[in-house]
């Protein structure tokens, strides 16, 4: 489904601020996988998602989606395959447009825009049905501007928008981080439901280790632009947050001692 090989990204290349954000990342994700990604700030999680979706282009490496090389495809041309939900609830929707207009845009993702009315009666009915499944009462607010919705409502709308056009890949970038705990809980369960309904291949970045283990079938820990470890199957099922942290510090220490050896040699 998603195949990433030898991916490297350097910001401010050649300047004093040069920053290697991703170092030779290799990642293969099978169809239907729900992968959670954890790692400290600056580990390269968001950059990885941004490169997959085409916001940035890599300095080295190759990205394939469903066997198609998309490495040099601009963001708007990758959009048909990729649905995204961002950390900032304001980022995924247009606030001066109405709920139904935002949904209409999402439904047309990757399709040619034409000179015909964007919201028809038939579409409005379809949106109404979809929104009522969220259980937030948004189906009664189709013609309100999105700017009037709360952060949680906007995020729920964004999830619906991200999945409306049936993407091959769903990218979630800490999409519950800016919400209050209760709303975050709601959104994460909503996410899970939507994903399992359509068996969507998903990458979810999260700060919450518990969440990372609870949801999905595979977990990746990133650190300093590298994939530190990658657990799935039985090993992951038995894992607790403590195991995760132990594994992290063990690998980190080994890595540190390796570096030390390099320096002292």
């Amino acid at each position, binding site marked *: 489904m998603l195949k990433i090989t030898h991916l490297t990204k350097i910001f401010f290349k050649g300047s004093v601020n040069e920053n290697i954000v991703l170092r030779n990342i290799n990642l293969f994700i099978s169809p239907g996988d729900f992968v959670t990604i954890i790692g400290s700030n600056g580990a390269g999680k968001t950059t990885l998602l941004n490169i997959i*979706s085409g916001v940035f282009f890599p300095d080295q490496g190759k990205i394939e989606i469903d066997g198609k090389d998309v490495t040099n495809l*601009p*963001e*708007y*041309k990758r*959009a*048909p395959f*990729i649905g*995204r939900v961002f950390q900032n609830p*304001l*980022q*995924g*929707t*247009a*606030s*001066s*447009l109405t709920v139904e*207009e935002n949904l*209409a*845009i*999402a439904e*047309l*993702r*990757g*399709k040619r*825009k*034409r*000179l*015909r*009315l*964007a*919201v028809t009666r038939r579409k409005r009915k379809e949106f109404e049905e979809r929104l009522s499944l969220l259980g937030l009462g948004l189906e009664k607010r189709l013609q309100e*501007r999105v700017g009037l919705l709360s952060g949680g409502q906007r995020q729920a709308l964004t999830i619906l*928008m991200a999945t409306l056009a049936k993407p091959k890949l769903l990218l979630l970038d800490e999409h519950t981080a800016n919400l209050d705990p209760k709303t975050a809980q709601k959104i994460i369960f909503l996410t899970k439901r939507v994903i399992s309904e359509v068996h969507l291949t998903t990458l979810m970045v999260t700060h919450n280790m518990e969440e990372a283990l609870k949801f999905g079938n595979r977990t990746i820990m990133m650190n300093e632009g590298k994939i530190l470890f990658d657990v799935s199957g039985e090993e992951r099922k038995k894992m607790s947050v403590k195991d995760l942290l132990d594994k992290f510090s063990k690998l980190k220490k080994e890595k540190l001692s390796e570096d030390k050896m390099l320096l002292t040699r």
Partner: protein
Amino acid sequence: MGDFILHVLEEGFLFAILSLGVYISFRALNFPDLSVDGTYPLGAAVVAIMILKGINPFIAMIIATLAGGLAGLFTGFLHTRLKIAPLLSGILTMICLYSINLRIMGRPNISLSPYLGYRTFITIIKEEANSLVTSKYLIPLIFLGIVIALKFLLDIFLHTEIGLAIRATGDNEEMIRAEGVNTDTTKLIGLALSNSLVALSGALFAQYQGFSDIGMGIGMIIAGLASVITGEALFRGRTISIITLEVIIGAIVYRLAIAVALKWGYNFGFKPTDLKLLTGLLVIIILAFPVIRKRMKLKFLKDIKI
């Protein structure tokens, strides 16, 4: 007095077409496009030279509108392809158009006076209508019809798939790119449309006032912006059809303010040459309104939102 009001309405209606164009670029697309100062006289120049050559004024107006659209595309090209900042792209188009407009007209101004025998769309309408009705309300009513028609067409356009993509580009560019829209294209379409309307407004105005002048575009962007924000200050509509109506009313109110200043301002030492200064001050006051309100804590003004 009645004639004064009629005169204001006539000018206001023509001016509203420009304001709708400014609304598209400044508000819908969130692109501060200063090309307007060049595309407004461009429309006037094209229509004037074609009428001078005896071409049908309606065909001339279509060509003038297209010329405006082309100029808008040039601004868009500077910004999207050559990555020049929006403000600078507009200014560059404007300055290039100054020379181009002079080339088109071949001189700084062209008179289209009916006494010289030129047939503008206004003289044609008057000739055609002469046998039926002779009323001073005819011209303002026709102008009103044009504005209303353009408003409805624009309302519908902004609700189409392309229109939605343009509005979303002005609202949240990151989001609409993630939704698979090439924002370069939406900017080009929006700027072309905006400047077409501006050029059409210039073309109509040249025929209405009976001449085209190289300097008639100076400050038009600020005047257009003044109309848009006056409309927004007077009402607080959120749906597209209300907003476009606001813009039209804003344009009329603005023209009224200008006409009042010109008619009675001399009592206070105001001269016609002070017009641009007045417009500038008006826009400054409206834009500074939120700051002034905050500083002075004027409670009764709290409800007015800009």
